[in-house]
């Protein structure tokens, strides 16, 4: 029987030197860049790119099966890695994000610890990656400077993803787009390497470099059906979570459109502002958040300017536009899980002419009952001709059912 509140293992300052931090694969491109930055500060990190049935297997064994699919996969992937024999179990730590919102996801870290205990691995420290001060690890501190650089990594990651989606379906030479992604990541990592201070000048250079890289790819010039992907953040981005949805759509001759990760960060930060506005909660938090919000927004706009009027590439959407666009649909107070942002992304896609949208979520996702499935009818009503399907992901959901529904949407689109 477990005892309560036994102290969970702490990631100490010494461990920074000795331990490798394992990162579950949530967003392939963005996380790689983030790791490149953290490595500059002396952390050893490894992004898990494992797949295969044993991940789900470990998840099912270690997490309450009614818990949502992402928890199951994230924890399954980490436990799977620990059992792989690849790591010295005395020199490894884990990291998990924790948003502290009203959705179950805030509890992943506790479920992770329970799972470690069940496997007799409670000595392995789990680091909480959060900005709310929910938990802290003495050996893992994110300084404002690091935050600032991670922000850049996210912006670059979003940009790479955005451009990749636009070239990949049309590339003349197979693999050219993926090569561009790899090139960009390696160039950026090299630029970041050893630099603990950099600013917008370097960023400008890197933006140009990334855009240049993708502009050089030869395209066929055909036109394909655009399919937007929105949803719960893990299943939206992680191929492990969505049965390689992106690859499937590509094989079905579609172009994927996917709003980026930075939007999610902005949405989270906006919560404090909204709490003040709606309920008269902390003014201090609202003022601070507003400042950060504006700052990040200005950084995002810098990229938008670079892409503005680009002969080849469609621009990203300004977050303020997404935020304003959603107002006729749902109150900005709906802020659990992906909250109003999810509705906002569907609206944004519909407005920008993407008429086919897949709303992804783990089976039984609580916020998505409201902000996803609950809003679809309304969006369709207000934007005739837009087709939205909702797909549930789950260890037991079969791919054929998911793909058949997507095929139906695509058949109608052609």
């Amino acid at each position, binding site marked *: *029987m477990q*005892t*309560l*509140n036994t102290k969970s293992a702490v990631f100490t300052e010494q461990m920074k030197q000795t331990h490798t931090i394992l990162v579950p694969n949530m967003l392939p491109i963005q996380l790689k860049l983030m790791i490149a930055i953290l490595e500059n500060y002396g952390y050893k990190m490894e992004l898990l790119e494992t797949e295969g*049935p044993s991940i789900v297997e470990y998840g*099912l064994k*270690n997490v*309450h*099966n*009614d*818990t*949502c699919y992402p928890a199951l996969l994230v924890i399954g992937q980490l436990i799977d890695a620990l059992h792989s024999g690849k790591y010295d179990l005395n020199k490894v730590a884990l990291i998990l994000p924790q948003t*502290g919102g*009203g959705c*179950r996801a805030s*509890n992943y870290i*506790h*479920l992770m610890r*329970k799972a470690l205990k*069940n*496997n007799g691995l409670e000595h392995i420290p789990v680091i909480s990656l959060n900005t709310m001060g929910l938990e802290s690890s003495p050996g893992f501190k994110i300084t404002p400077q690091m935050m600032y650089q991670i922000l850049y990594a996210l912006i670059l990651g979003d940009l790479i993803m955005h451009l990749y989606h636009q070239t990949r379906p049309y590339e003349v030479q197979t693999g050219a787009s993926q090569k561009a992604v790899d090139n960009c990541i390696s160039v950026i990592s090299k630029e970041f390497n050893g630099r603990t201070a950099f600013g917008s000048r370097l960023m400008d250079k890197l933006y140009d470099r990334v855009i240049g890289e993708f502009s050089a790819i030869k395209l066929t010039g055909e036109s394909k059906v655009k399919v937007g992907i929105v949803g719960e953040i893990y299943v939206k981005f992680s191929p492990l979570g969505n049965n390689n949805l992106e690859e499937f759509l590509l094989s079905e001759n579609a172009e994927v459109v996917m709003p980026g990760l930075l939007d999610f960060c902005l949405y989270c930060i906006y919560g404090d502002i909204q*709490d003040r506005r*709606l*309920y*008269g909660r902390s003014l201090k938090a609202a003022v601070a958040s507003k400042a950060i919000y504006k700052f990040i927004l200005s950084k995002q706009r810098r990229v938008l300017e670079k892409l503005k009027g680009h002969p080849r590439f469609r621009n990203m959407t300004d977050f303020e536009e997404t935020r304003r666009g959603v107002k006729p649909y*749902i*109150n900005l*107070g*709906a*802020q*659990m*899980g992906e909250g109003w942002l999810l509705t906002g992304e569907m609206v944004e896609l519909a407005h920008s002419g993407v008429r086919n949208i897949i709303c992804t979520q783990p*089976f039984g*996702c*609580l*916020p998505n*009952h*409201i*902000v996803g*499935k*609950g*809003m*679809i*009818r*309304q969006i*369709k009503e207000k934007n*005739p001709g837009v087709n939205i399907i909702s797909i*549930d992901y*789950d*260890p*037991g*959901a*079969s791919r*054929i*059912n998911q*793909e*058949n529904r997507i095929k*139906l949407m*695509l*058949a109608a689109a052609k």
Partner: protein
Amino acid sequence: MKELFLGIDIGSTTVKLVAVEEQKIVYKKYERHYSKVREKACEMLSAAKDCLKDKLIKVALTGSAGLGVAKAGGISFIQEVFATRKIVEEMMPDTDVVIELGGEDAKIIYLSGELEERMNGTCAGGTGAFIDQMAVLLDVTPAEMDELSLKAERLYTIASRCGVFAKTDVQPLLNQGAKKEDIAASIFQAVVDQTLTGLAQGREITGNVLFLGGPLHFFKGLQKRFYETLDLNEKTARFPEIAPFAVALGAAYHASNTNETYSYESLLQALQKTAGEVNTTHHLEPLFENEQQYREFVERHKKSDVIHQNLEEYSGAAYLGVDCGSTTTKMALIGEDNQLLYSYYSSNKGNPLVIVREQLLEIYRLCGDRVRIKGCAATGYGEELIKNAFHMDFGLVETVAHFRAAKHFCPNVDFIIDIGGQDMKCFKIHNNCIDNIMLNEACSSGCGSFIETFAKSMGYTVQEFCKRGIMAKRPIDLGSRCTVFMNSSVKQAQKDGAPLEDISAGLSVSVVKNALYKVIRVNSADDLGENVVVQGGTFLNDAILRSFEKELKKEVIRPSIAGLMGAYGAALYAKEHTSGSSTMLSQQQTLEFTHSAKSVRCGGCTNHCNLTINIFSENRRYISGNRCEKPLGKGESKQLPDMYAYKMNRLKEYIDMPTLGNRPKVGIPLVLNLFELLPFWYRFFDVLGYDVVVSGVSNRAVFNKGQNSIPSDTVCYPAKLVHGHVELLAEKGVDTIFYPCMTYNFNEGHSDNCYNCPVVAYYPELLSANMKCLKSIRFLMPYFELNDPKALAATAYNYFSKYLPAVSRTDIKKAVDEAYKAQQAWQNDITDAARKTLEYAKENNLPIAVLAGRPYHIDPEINHGINQLITSYGMVVLSEDCVCKLTENQKVNVLNQWTYHSRMYKAAKFAVETPGAQLIQLVSFGCGIDAITTDENREIVERGGKIYTQLKIDDINNLGAVKIRIRSLLEAVAEGEKNADIKH
């Protein structure tokens, strides 16, 4: 050469082939493929040779299993719904809506207005397959079930979400003796309801409706239900002759637009090529490496046997046990040395009474004058019915019966798992008493009978089917969720061309995984303890037994009478407790025994239970389906204190409150968090000069009113009910409805944060986006937080000054102040009532059930009268919110940030601390947060040395599983006390 267009529709269960020449159908065929998708397609093509040879063939495949074949053979494919739409537009252009039900998919297409095509979600299960499954349950063919349904007199409510749920509703009806005719029609009605809620999702079905697909073509009873439910007539409802072939025909039309042409030979070749295609499914290890290993396995299990003696050779006393389970009836007669004299195992065939009577007569005949039955006991789902019908001496809860029997084979048994037709039961044995009972939730149920139904649908008996799996080389990994999901995994495997052996073995592994990871939720084999006894008919299959041992990496004991254990245990119990003679009906009385049943709806209270009145010979009556004593006519028995009933009655006062006439009205739905906040908002509007109209008390009819605007079929039942309440308010003619969004709940200082769950927090948003009636009603859904009265007064003024005329800042401030007072008074009142209840329990030495749920669980339609059931077992009932103030904070291992859920942790602590109290946690199906709280509560309770009980509830109105749990809990508590007494 003439051109011919060929459409082949390969669905989940059948292959349909249509050939079109010069706009005419020249050939059509419809056959089941029994999972041999590719072979069947080739076979059917060959059968059509005469028609196809020497033609220029253009072909297209369609259907869920057609996709893989098309890919493998490089043949053109068209998505089936799309194919359907094309053909309908072509042939029947005045159609407004198409409803197509297939083997496992259901589709709807809206043609007029905004074009919309939809398929059932993942959780909506099969339709044709569902009907097949139900027919098996009724022990009739699907065609017979159709016949029966036409003679129905009444309809029962059967959960329509998916097959598994429906089954849980049908089974008790059968056991209670409801008429098959009525059940058959109710099953079809469930299909209709599912189509309307799951598929149409609120969009109306009007105009000319075209019905396609096999089930809608073949089942007249299903057609009738659609006619009545949608209010259609001969003109608007269309059931064309071509229905089963429509999709294939659509594919044929699509084929006419393709470029590739085939000859008969080249097409056959292309199809044959696919038969040998490598597949992509995940595979598992084989169950046995070789024959030798299998033989050793069989030998080992032979050792766990009972002594058998022929009844005709025995004389002396005998004891009878009857286990009337959900799908099967088992009987065992034992002698003085526990030897098995006679046994019986059979499917209920819809009426267990007939079977038991026949068997009793047979036993009496064999007993002659030599053997005297000195005691008998009944157990299982039908325990009460059998006990009453035949005057049995004892009735015992099935967990006790199973434990009794398991002990016989393994005196130091630590863990028992029983997988029967419908249920999976596991329990740990601790200090020689039953502890920690785990029953499958509705969602993973039906596993034993799932294999059976599946085997039958493939044309095998279950024994044959499982046997095929024993030597499978590459069992398929089918996942471990509910059987509906397994259905789709099987479909996927079929698509990939997996052989039957591998599917069979894979299914066995899945059933086992389901038991281990869904029901028992083991982390390692050691969790189960040293000595594991497995039983239940399902374990008689070696493939399942082997999968279980493999998965557990441990050898277990399977008694040779695995399927009879309940009956054997009951017989042992009867022997132990006999008074020396039995009250059972005599041979003559049994011979004269008759039975008839009629069903009525109880009017005793708002639960309106579906009662079945069984009338036996000598005019004896037995009523089943009741939750309380009322309909039994024993007069008003003394009602024990029950906080659920108390709170609900207090809220009803608000509903019945007379309105003051000419004041303006505002409607408030009695749903979700408003079950707690009604006193607050009622007072608030009262002070502002409004009459508050409360929607009312939920019941099934209220749910039905709103069911067609529910956009997410996996949301919890309490949320689904909200739609009905809004409709109720609309009917009551209110022009304003107030229902605030609340991210935050009360901060009660016992949690890290004070959130509501996302569904409670933002459900008004969903209503406003999906409910038509709200377009003509002013729907006020401000975002409010109640933790800071001053801030609320400010935000409320900002909000209401826009909507309510002439309201001043002072008015609002006064209303807010008064509202807080009302809320405080309400809280104090229920805490006081809880204290009194506690004292009452103490004075009368009564056990206490701390029934921990959320405020809205007091809704009788949500808890299905569980609180009444508990008091009928002699426990007083407390609720989580009222005991929360009576104990200290509880520390937990998880992020504790939802107010309602954090109360349950405190309730668990309270239950641990209070002598005579037990925690019973209510969990609504689909409550994701409870996935976290249940584990945590279990830990708190078990650490305190008590037994954790969880009751999962949904729209299912069946308390069978709940009864077993509560009775087992009481039994375990009593045993525990007895043991403690002995020690002292």
